[in-house]
């Protein structure tokens, strides 16, 4: 077996910019080179085998002239006690010289020309520095200085083959350092800032010795209440910033000792690093954010006030889970890169801070009414003010005044234009606009609507709809150019749908398509969406209801049709909060579900919900209306039950696919931009645009809150062109945004996020994703669950420099850690997830090729599987204690054709429980339980016995913290239950019989277990323990149908035990043929050979170092002739080897 390391996801511990466009990233032992303009990985190099790269230091040699062409650079990369020196060659593109930047195809080229590895050194390295002969730094550095954790520095000559030590100095303070940073590039100027375990920062000169031969401390910076995790100097060495366990950053002036340091609070957890970037401080923290602050020294000098200067200018929240570990600033100080625990590498624009974070009114344009005389005849005591407004274009809005004037304002030239005056609209006007048609539709107190064109292309028109006040108006455009729809809502609940047609004439033709009957729910519609493909109108209401109307006239084009009533009424879709927006999108046509619609609703509970609407084109004649509580949603999906087929044909099928809370405030709208979902909302007096897929706030504007009239229009995915306007203090306040150039718009994420906390469960899908499609080549899909409570479905994608684990779906439903995942294939593909708080959930997984790609042409190296995870059921809570954890599960279909599955679960209260899951009922039923170990269970698995007397047998095997393995015969309890269940009665659960076999395999907890049967029917049982041991047992079991116990066990040899299989607890065991793979907390993957020729013997076959710390789960799969090994812990690593069949 020759395992080769492939995809890796893990902590990004170091990064540095080589140029403004090339970013170097240290992740695990690898150094990666990215082009930040394109996000392309240019090169990847293994730098420190068996250590992670903690820091990267570029040789700061002064370049004479920057021209295009080949450049070289030297880099130090170190981690733990090892250091590598790399020489790299790269091409400076035209953009580096400030010319044309649009050169996406001609990506940067980087290659590693030379690499020398040094070490191990005596001690852990805390910093390294290039040392030049003089500060002009025109000649290459001949020496390097290394600072070690015991507070000493060594200087090495690197011009010789092996570095020779020229200088050694110990600081007078001999204590362990958590961090250190050099300043200066010559021996004479070199100082070390040392962060001690005793909460102090010491600055000392490397060439200075006292009488005892130690370096004296020059500055003692005392004040932190915790150990120092990071230190940086500014470019001149005037300031030093330190970050600490005490959640503060402190900035110290080194020039003037009298000045107190500035203490900055704001991060909600420990701070790992902070850069001084001109007037800003950029810090990264355990709280998963990167924040930007004013440098209090500089700002104070400018503005005189210290208090205001402590404000956080930006909080960048794009990483998930916990910790942003690393951070780099580009040479031009425009870009910040951050690296997280989640494996993500993200980019942020320092320039964008002002553009994206609108703090003060000064950044907004405020517009008041012009002089009355410019549009009205003079009048006495005019008290004219704006009654309402609406955006009609990025630079235009329209207002109705209290005197009934409709005026248009153009921000490009500051001109006001009178469109109409109508006394009917005095003191009240509800207004909506359609930017594409420049239509302004207004409603008044007498039930009339007025339709005007912003550029007066046609004469304003007025229609009487009802006798009461118009409460709301919704305008949308048709797919057909020149056609628009207007929904008008009267105060008594009556609604009208009009079509406005300008295709044939300048003056619009208006016809009433339908009156819409109010819902019997007595609810007020506040948002609507129209779908012409399926002739639907979807409405959301203030009382949290979702209404769907069929609109036959959309197809027939007839006028004066019968009133229509809602065919679907969903109540409590956002708890009791208002549904603030509804958005419709077509489902891709190639999906197994299609054709259909995706419906997104947002609510004032801060959530958005994704629904799938299918079976829409049903005959509407005898359709029964559907009235549901959204909490009971999943019962509506009836694909699998035959008796429901008929009823299914009668109405729309609506399935809740996903629900997530994106803000603690209100979610107010949804937009799809380049296939990405953006949510608009308000939180703490700010308007925000949230990018759901990438998880960050794209725009944030201090506007006072959501209670005022507001409008937002946007053109592009990067919000380069957008306008946000709101009404405040009788003025229209607006942000008109037109990003100056596309130069500043970089890829925001150049390496995508994985789990941000420890991964605890991993299972490859194998054929489970190919239940309904036959792929040309099966993609490698893996499901992972973690401490971050997320379930992720990812696809392995091979690549030029590295394979990647690409996220396909992230599901947030568990309330705490997911410890176990199982696939089971019945009529549908099911996924069972379980973990702490006794959560056990069942998901229906659908997968198909992406739109436009038939399965027969699916290429997993180029195409991503379209996979969805529908929530089907959760098991009831059965233990008495709510802290009970489900430690492990094992699942299999017991009757695939009827959709019946058995799930065996090991609980922390020592109970083994067997569940039946029925796809038709979408419910868990408790079959049996039993207690034997009297200790916390750790592992559970099952095997089937096909040739057992009396039918197929089921044996459950459990392990616990007592070091024992127990074998339970579950055949009878399962078959009795299922036989009764199939006749229509749900029996009460029974007790599992006492285990028929058990043995003491380990001294303490058994963390890993795998069972494989040999050709003769005997079994190999391999287990790994907390005691470092691997135990292998070879047994054969004889079953009997009548006697008790129902099975007896013959040992085929002594238990083979490797007591010191690892140096730490064994956390994963898998048997592959004659080999056993074990993984352990000591970060090794060991391969053992099983020999059954004479008794049972185990010998070591191979050992690998693993780059994932704290590995806690392992899974294997053989697919397309390749054995894949997935190891999950703090991150994920995939190893593979081609196997001969």
């Amino acid at each position, binding site marked *: 077996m020759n395992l080769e390391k492939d995809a890796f996801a893990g902590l990004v511990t170091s990064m540095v910019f080589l140029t403004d466009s090339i970013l170097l990233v240290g992740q695990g032992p690898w150094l990666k080179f990215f082009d930040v303009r394109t996000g392309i990985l240019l090169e990847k190099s293994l730098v420190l085998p068996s250590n992670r790269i903690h820091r990267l230091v570029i040789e700061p040699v002064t370049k004479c002239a920057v021209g295009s062409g080949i450049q070289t650079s030297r880099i130090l990369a170190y981690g*733990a006690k090892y250091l590598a020196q790399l020489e790299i060659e790269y091409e400076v593109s035209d953009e580096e010289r400030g010319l044309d930047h649009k050169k996406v195809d001609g990506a940067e080229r980087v290659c590693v020309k030379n690499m020398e590895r040094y070490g191990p050194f005596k001690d852990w390295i805390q910093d390294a520095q290039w040392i030049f002969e003089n500060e002009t730094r025109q000649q290459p550095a001949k020496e390097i200085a290394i600072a070690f954790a015991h507070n000493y520095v060594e200087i090495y000559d690197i011009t010789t083959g092996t570095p020779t030590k020229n200088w050694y100095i110990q600081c007078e303070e001999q*204590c362990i350092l958590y961090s250190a940073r050099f300043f200066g590039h010559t021996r004479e100027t070199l100082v070390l800032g040392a962060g001690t375990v005793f909460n102090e920062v010491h600055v000392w000169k490397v060439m200075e010795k006292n009488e005892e031969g130690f370096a004296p401390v020059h500055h003692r910076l005392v004040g932190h209440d915790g150990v120092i995790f990071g230190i940086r100097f500014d470019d001149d060495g005037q300031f030093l910033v330190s970050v600490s366990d005490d959640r503060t950053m402190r900035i110290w002036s080194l020039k003037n000792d009298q000045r107190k340091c500035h203490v900055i609070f704001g991060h909600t957890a420990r701070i790992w690093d902070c850069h001084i970037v001109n007037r800003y401080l950029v810090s990264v923290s355990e709280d998963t954010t990167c924040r930007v602050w004013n440098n209090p020294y500089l700002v104070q000098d400018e503005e005189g006030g210290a208090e205001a200067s402590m404000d956080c200018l930006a909080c960048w929240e794009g990483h998930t889970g916990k910790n942003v570990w690393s951070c780099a600033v580009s040479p031009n100080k425009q870009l910040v890169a951050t690296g997280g625990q989640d494996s993500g590498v993200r980019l942020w624009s320092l320039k964008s801070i002002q553009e994206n974070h609108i703090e003060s009114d000064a950044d907004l344009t405020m517009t008041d009414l012009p002089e009355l005389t410019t549009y009205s005849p003079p009048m006495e005591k005019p008290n004219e003010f704006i009654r309402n407004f609406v955006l009609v274009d990025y630079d235009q809005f329209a207002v109705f005044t209290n005197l009934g004037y409709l005026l248009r304002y153009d921000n490009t030239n500051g001109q006001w234009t009178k469109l109409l005056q109508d006394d009917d609209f005095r003191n009240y006007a509800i207004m909506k606009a359609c930017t594409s048609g420049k239509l302004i539709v207004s409603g008044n107190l007498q039930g009339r609507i007025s339709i005007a064109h912003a550029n007066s292309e046609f004469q304003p028109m007025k229609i009487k709809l009802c006798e009461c006040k118009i409460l709301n108006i919704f305008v949308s455009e048709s797919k057909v150019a020149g056609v628009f729809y207007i929904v008008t809502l009267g105060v008594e609940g009556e609604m009208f749908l009009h079509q406005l047609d300008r295709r044939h004439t300048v003056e619009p033709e208006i016809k009433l398509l339908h009156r819409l009957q109010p819902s019997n729910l007595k609810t007020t519609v506040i948002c609507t969406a129209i779908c012409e493909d399926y002739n639907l109108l979807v409405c959301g209401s203030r009382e949290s209801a979702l209404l769907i109307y069929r609109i036959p006239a959309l197809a027939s084009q007839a006028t004066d049709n019968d009133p229509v009533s809602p065919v679907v009424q969903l109540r409590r879709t956002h708890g009791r909060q208002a549904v603030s927006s509804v958005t419709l999108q077509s489902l891709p046509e190639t999906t197994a579900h299609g054709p259909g619609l995706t419906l997104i609703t947002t609510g004032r509970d801060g959530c958005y919900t994704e629904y799938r609407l299918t079976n829409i084109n049903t005959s509407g004649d005898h359709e029964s209306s559907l009235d549901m509580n959204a909490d009971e949603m999943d019962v509506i999906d009836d694909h699998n039950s035959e008796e429901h087929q008929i009823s299914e044909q009668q109405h729309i099928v609506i399935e809740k696919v996903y629900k997530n809370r994106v803000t603690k405030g209100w979610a107010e709208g949804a937009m799809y931009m380049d296939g990405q979902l953006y949510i608009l909302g308000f939180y703490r007096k700010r308007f925000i645009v949230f990018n759901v897929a990438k998880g960050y706030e794209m725009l944030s504007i201090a506007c006072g809150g959501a209670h005022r009239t507001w409008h937002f229009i946007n053109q592009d995915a990067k919000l380069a062109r957008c306008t946000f306007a709101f009404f405040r203090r009788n003025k229209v306040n607006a942000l008109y945004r037109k990003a100056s150039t596309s130069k500043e718009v970089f890829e925001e994420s150049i390496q995508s996020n994985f789990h941000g906390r420890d991964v605890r469960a991993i299972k490859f899908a194998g054929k489970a994703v190919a239940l309904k499609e036959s792929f040309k080549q099966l993609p490698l899909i893996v499901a992972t669950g973690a401490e971050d409570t997320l379930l992720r479905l990812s696809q392995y994608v091979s690549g030029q420099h590295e394979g990647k684990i690409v996220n396909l779906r992230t599901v947030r439903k568990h309330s705490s850690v997911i410890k176990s995942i199982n696939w089971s294939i019945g009529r549908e593909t099911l996924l069972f997830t379980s973990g702490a708080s006794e959560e056990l959930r069942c998901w229906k997984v659908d997968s198909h090729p992406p739109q436009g790609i038939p399965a027969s042409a699916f290429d997993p190296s180029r195409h991503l599987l379209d996979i969805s995870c529908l929530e089907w059921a959760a098991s009831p809570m059965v233990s008495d204690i709510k802290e009970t954890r489900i430690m492990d599960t094992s699942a299999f279909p017991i009757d695939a054709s009827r959709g019946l599955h058995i799930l065996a679960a090991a609980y922390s209260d020592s109970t083994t429980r067997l569940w039946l899951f029925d796809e038709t009922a979408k419910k868990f039923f408790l079959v049996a339980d039993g207690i034997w170990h009297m200790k916390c269970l750790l592992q559970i698995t099952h095997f089937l016995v096909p040739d057992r007397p009396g039918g197929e047998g089921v044996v459950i095997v459990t392990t616990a913290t007592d070091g024992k393995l127990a074998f339970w015969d579950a055949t009878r309890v399962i078959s009795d239950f299922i036989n009764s269940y199939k006749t229509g009665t749900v029996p009460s659960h029974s007790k599992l019989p006492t285990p028929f076999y058990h043995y003491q395999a380990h001294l303490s907890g058994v963390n890993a277990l795998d069972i494989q049967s040999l050709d003769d029917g005997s079994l190999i049982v391999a287990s790994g323990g*907390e005691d470092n041991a691997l135990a292998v047992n070879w047994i054969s079991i004889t079953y009997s149908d009548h006697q008790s116990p129902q099975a007896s066990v013959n040992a085929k040899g002594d238990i083979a035990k490797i007591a010191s299989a690892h140096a*730490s607890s064994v956390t994963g065991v898998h048997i592959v043929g004659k080999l056993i793979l074990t993984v352990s907390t000591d970060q090794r993957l060991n391969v053992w050979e099983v020999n059954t020729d004479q008794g049972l013997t185990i010998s070591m076959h191979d050992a690998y170092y693993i780059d994932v*710390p704290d590995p806690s789960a392992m899974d294997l799969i053989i697919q397309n002739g390749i054995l894949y090994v997935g190891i999950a812990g703090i991150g994920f690593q995939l190893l593979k080897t081609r196997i001969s069949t």
Partner: protein
Amino acid sequence: MGKSSKDKRDVYYRLAKEQGWRARSAFKLMQLDEEFDLFEGVHRAVDLCAAPGSWSQVLTKRLSENHEKNPQEEPPKIVAVDLQAMAPLPGVIQLQGDITKVSTAEQIISYFEGKLSDIVICDGAPDVTGLHDMDEYIQAQLLLAALNITTHVLRPGGTFIAKIFRGKDITLLYSQLKVFFPVVTCSKPRSSRNSSIESFIVCQNYSPPEGYMPTMANPLLDFHYNNDNELAGPNRMIVPFIACGDLSGYDSDMTYALEVSIISGLACNRTISCSTFTLQKKDNEEYKSLDPLQPPISAPYLKAMELKRNNFYNRVA
């Protein structure tokens, strides 16, 4: 390390509160004692990184039991060293000092009137950062600092016990310890949670290399991988593992019902052995939530916590 916060309130946490131990770690030392009989004939003991003091509590209990049995022998002497101040404990001499200083070693020996200690124990651990290699390194340095001062104060033949993190480079530490102790065992008490990276190293029969002169001038550093101790492979230096604590006792991973009373002594007492265990309900008594006996004396984030209480962070975000 590496456990979900949901698991923190285990049965030993509750037991410690009920029985008056300053921390749940008291059970770890008691269970190690059950296995290794650590305190037989011990009169002088040193507790390094002692705060909050639960191991010193165990020392006091066991050593005074020794003295009660053999009153003719010298009375027990216990020195507890920590950088932090610790609430006083009867029968324990407290020394607020740095274990990397010679003066600290000299002070310990002066308390023992020139004699050396029979046992040195150290339950110290840094706050983990989440960078596993760094955390393991810092823990190893703490242990080596403890070992270094131990070479000054431990009598030949004595015992040294310390906490370790069994991570990727643990075998380097094993090699270093084997230089000073012929018998080194890695042990995991049942009160230490399964799959927590923590274990304890029990080093017996202190035998420094011939001519070894204890010094504080140069800190002991851990070793490197070489041919005798490979990075990966069959020849790695792995010391034997022993689980300790009565198998019939409480399980730190198991979920127990709160209203169940704790049977004192069952968790850790070598005189009680139960082949089966039962949980009894205390009559007419409801479970009361107890405060921890010894809250942390100072935490680095106290000021940040205070700000949080005053809604500081809401203003910033």
